[in-house]
């Protein structure tokens, strides 16, 4: 096992520490003090370093590759190109296997992997990679809908055979999903006001702090052990093994320390490359991207163009919504089809509208590939439909919150897909709560010693002492699905064991859940304590020696793997009680008659009477259960009408943004970003707060600063570094008051509702609405840049 590989974490917590309590993360202190071992910290004796050579251009034919000079560099053990791939499987992909492990004949985006090197030092590997000579012949670049669908457009992927190829109107469209309900033409006639809008959403990056990293160790049985920072071990395994030509049981994955994910680790990055180099050289191979490479090494959030028409009656009821959402998926499909499905099915927002026509498409272009990121298609739509809601309210002369309230969906509402929302949907209540919060005081920068610039737009850059500063307030609310949708078999697996260790009953939980910071490692221990009445819980490192946990994404892990752990614990408890009945049943009638619980290390009746100590019940036996668990199934959306019970659960959050804008310089200070969210049941309230504040801040980022800038002429990325891809600092992060509702969803474990994504949706449009309120500008693009607000 390499240095820095994960180890078991045992969490002891007295008799408390069950669900509903705020628990600190077991790895929190280690992370803050810099002692936590991330994937990039791993080390193995005799290890080599892998380096990938990437395309400097976005679209070109590869005329030739000459690896001679690179191979001659002392310290180089292997140089591999497409021709060296060992099997007939040379592509991978989450939904469509369209992504070459190494480019073949053609590169389709800036930064595409072309060749790779293994050497005994990272610098040697970099130098050698630079000596690989690749001759490119440039092709025209496809960068938007017009160029993708032009009559003479080059096909980004020829001869498509994927599931969507048959129904898309053009081969440069990955997937198209219409949603048609009611009769928009008829409803349009009832509208007193009709408002149209066109919106642009920039390309956001997940900007996780731990770059892609992993270590592949060749094994004696001809297989490989891969330690990797990822989001879904089994999806990785399914894509890696065929390319290596190995059966899945010879490719063993273990989760290495993950430094954030946000969707960006759902696709493979260096996994196959490290394994191939390890198998080729017979030595452990480590690959760590630097920050620059990381910007090319994972998918981003789809940039989008959105066209909307909303109609409403004078008394503020929506008559209809028409929308067209064009998502740019870039060169490879990644999860574009699912993102399209989300954008379409959630494209109206959390509102009751009977007459709807939405069309969402995902494009193939030569821009950077886009895929999963927190909010997954719902974010782009929310930015646009919430701007539209404000615009309609403005036309009607109605308060924007009141207008939303009159159209807010609630439990029992019907989605544009025909799906009935059969659990609480407190949309109006969430808005009411954020609106009722006291406003932050005005002119907080004023002090007896002059202006405190930290409280002003521009901050320490000292651009204003109050001149030109105008306050604005904005509201937004959003709807996000929880879990994988459209008929996907979205299960998880948990293995729970109970035994006596050193005189104490101990539960251990083993899942393949990727802990990427979301807090599953804490929540699983809480669930085990609640269900099994033990103090000590050991969390096994996540690996592929247990069944799939599904992805750590879609706000689903607490629901699905939490549900699997709960279910496995219940089965263990039944077995333990059965053992108890066998051993002690004759001593007390309650063993046969009463409802029995495990509490405080004992078997107790629901009346609180202690029947036995778990230590005595278990003796030297261990009870172990490994079981898959599933939530309610979903259905695919009809390809023409979009009708279908496509989603598992919906989650809702609302924001109120208070901003101060320096209207002369166009600089923005977000003063406060209040959030109200229904979480069904907060299993770990502290962690829920962290998710909501983090999601809110990520939404703020795309509102005012975060954007990967792609040159429209060359499709090349212009700012692949944290020097020019800006994410909020603590001075940009406002006070975030959070109001958490717990309205149980009876279909979900403990009534919980996925938390992680909903706050990322409404944060962005709330900030935009506040900036519009301060400036009076239309602002149909995010992120807003200073030149959009002043002096353009």
């Amino acid at each position, binding site marked *: 096992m390499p240095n820095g590989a994960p180890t078991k974490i045992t969490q002891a917590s007295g008799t408390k520490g069950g669900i509903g309590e705020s628990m600190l993360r077991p790895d929190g202190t280690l992370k803050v003090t810099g002692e936590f071992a991330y994937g990039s910290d791993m080390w193995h004796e005799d290890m080599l370093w892998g380096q990938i050579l990437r395309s400097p251009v976005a679209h070109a034919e590869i005329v030739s590759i000459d690896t001679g000079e690179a191979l001659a560099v002392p310290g180089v053990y292997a140089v591999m190109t497409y021709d060296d791939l060992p099997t007939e499987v040379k592509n991978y992909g989450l939904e469509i296997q369209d992504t070459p492990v190494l480019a073949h004949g053609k590169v389709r985006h800036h930064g595409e992997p072309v060749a790779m090197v293994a050497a005994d030092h990272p610098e040697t590997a*970099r130098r050698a990679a630079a000596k690989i000579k690749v001759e490119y012949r440039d092709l025209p670049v496809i960068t938007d809908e017009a160029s993708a669908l032009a009559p003479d457009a080059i096909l980004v992927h020829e001869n498509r055979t994927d599931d969507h190829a048959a129904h898309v109107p053009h081969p440069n469209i990955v997937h198209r999903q219409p949603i048609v309900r009611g009769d928009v033409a008829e409803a349009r006639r009832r509208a007193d006001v009709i408002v149209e809008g066109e919106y642009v959403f920039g390309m956001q990056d997940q900007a996780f702090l731990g770059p892609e990293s992993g270590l592949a160790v060749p094994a004696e049985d001809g297989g490989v052990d891969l330690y990797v920072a990822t989001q879904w071990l089994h999806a990785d395994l399914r894509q890696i093994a065929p390319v290596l030509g190995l059966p899945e049981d010879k490719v063993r994955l273990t989760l290495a320390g993950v430094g954030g994910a946000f969707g960006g680790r759902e696709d493979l990055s260096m996994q196959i490359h490290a394994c191939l180099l390890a198998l080729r050289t017979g030595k452990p191979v480590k690959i760590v991207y*630097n*920050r*620059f490479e990381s910007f090319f090494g994972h998918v981003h959030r789809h940039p989008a163009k959105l066209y909307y028409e909303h109609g409403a009656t004078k008394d503020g009821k929506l008559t209809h919504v028409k929308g067209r959402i064009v998502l740019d998926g870039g060169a490879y499909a990644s999860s574009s089809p699912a993102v399209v499905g989300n954008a379409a099915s959630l494209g109206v927002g959390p509102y009751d509208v009977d007459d709807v026509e939405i069309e969402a498409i995902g494009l193939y272009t030569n821009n950077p590939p886009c895929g999963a990121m927190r909010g997954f298609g719902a974010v782009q739509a929310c930015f646009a439909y919430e701007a539209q809601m404000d615009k309609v309210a403005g036309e009607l002369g109605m308060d924007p919150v009141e207008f939303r309230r009159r159209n807010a969906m609630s439990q029992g509402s019907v989605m544009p897909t025909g799906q009935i929302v059969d659990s609480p949907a407190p949309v109006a209540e969430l808005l009411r709560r954020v609106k009722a919060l006291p406003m932050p005081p005005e002119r907080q920068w004023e002090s007896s010693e002059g202006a405190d610039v*930290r409280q002003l*737009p*521009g*901050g*320490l*850059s*000292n*651009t*204003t*002492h109050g*001149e*030109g500063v105008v306050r604005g307030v904005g509201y937004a609310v959003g709807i996000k699905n929880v879990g994988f949708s459209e008929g996907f078999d979205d299960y998880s697996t948990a293995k729970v064991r109970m035994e006596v260790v050193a005189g104490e009953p101990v539960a251990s939980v083993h899942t393949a859940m990727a802990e990427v910071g979301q807090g599953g490692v804490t929540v699983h221990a809480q669930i085990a304590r609640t269900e099994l009445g033990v103090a000590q819980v050991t969390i096994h490192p996540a690996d592929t020696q247990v069944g799939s946990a599904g992805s750590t994404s879609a706000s689903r892990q607490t629901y699905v793997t939490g549900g699997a752990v709960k279910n496995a614990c219940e089965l263990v408890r039944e077995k333990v009680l059965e053992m108890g009945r066998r051993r002690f049943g004759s001593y007390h009638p309650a063993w046969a008659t009463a409802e029995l619980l495990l509490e405080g290390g004992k078997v107790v009746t629901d009346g609180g009477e202690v029947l036995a100590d778990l230590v005595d019940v278990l003796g030297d036996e261990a009870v172990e259960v490994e079981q898959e668990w599933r939530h309610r199934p979903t259905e695919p959306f009809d390809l023409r009408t979009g009708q279908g019970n496509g989603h598992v659960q919906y989650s809702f959050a609302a924001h109120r943004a208070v901003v101060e804008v320096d209207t*002369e*310089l*166009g*600089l923005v*200070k977000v003063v406060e970003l209040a959030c109200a969210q229904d979480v069904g049941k907060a299993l770990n309230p502290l962690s829920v707060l962290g998710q909501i504040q983090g999601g809110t801040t990520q939404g703020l980022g795309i509102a*005012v*600063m975060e954007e990967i*800038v792609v040159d429209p002429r060359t499709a090349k990325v*212009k*700012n692949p*570094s944290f*020097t*020019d891809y*800006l994410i*909020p*600092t*603590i*001075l*940009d992060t406002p006070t975030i008051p959070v109001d958490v509702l717990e309205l149980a969803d009876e279909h979900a474990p403990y009534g919980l509702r996925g938390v992680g994504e909903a706050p990322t949706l409404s944060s962005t449009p709330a900030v935009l609405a506040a900036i519009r309120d301060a400036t009076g500008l239309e602002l149909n693009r995010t992120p807003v*840049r*200073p*030149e959009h607000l*002043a*002096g*353009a």
Partner: protein
Amino acid sequence: MDFLRPASWEEALAAKAEHPTAVPIAGGTDVMVEINFDQRRPDYLMDLGRIGDLYEWEVGEDSVRLGASVPYTRIMENLRTELPGLALASHTVASPQIRNRGGVGGNLGTASPAGDAHPALLAAGAEVEAESVRGSRRILIDAFYTGVKRNALAPDELIRAVHIKKADGPQQFSKVGTRNAMVIAVCAFGLALHPGTRTVRTGIGSAAPTPIRAAAAEEFLNAALDEGGFWDNGKIITPSIARQFADLCSAACNPIDDVRGTASYRRHAVGVMARRTLTWTWESYRGTAHASEGVA
């Protein structure tokens, strides 16, 4: 890449004479980023960290001799009175960790138009003390920046110190970035009042191929302040004068469109910062004048 570690200034000069392509490194906050990103592969890297003299400063009669490696944090903590413009600019440099290592010598060596120290140095008035085995010379800051990331140093020269005029009046520094901290300038502006000579000096960053002074704006304002007797009567500067000064500062710019901002926005923002910093410094000057009248 060879790593040179001179133990003294004389050794450093000798090494630089022998290896003119050697890249000096002090805090490393610029050079190491370029090396890590593989954008720069110097044949020789020369670590100046052992030369203690570079981390010291002396406050003289008229000016401060600031060692090339004095970190920005020290400037903020110790030289706020003597060098208020540079102290404000130092405060906007990156993050606390970087301010603890980076110094003005590095900003001058890199000579990026976006370096935060430049507008403050131009506005205050400064001379760069450059030295080689051939001898020492002082380069006027106005003549130091010769092109995009180019400066007036000869290949065998090293920056030993900067001589910056002590403030004889209020100074201000403003920088526009798209984040409220830890941001590279979209554009920046420094302004210093020099009541002793009855002049105003400016410095503009990130709005031309090099850091520049807005010469025509300075001339206009010096004449207008003189004609109106403003230095003596301490009146509020009339809005039309402030506006014209701002417009001339905008006109001095020769900016580009890039990923950080557009040319037209940069021109506009420099004008706004010019007007605001003039207002702030002049208010401060009037306040001081008023107080000294009271004492007299």
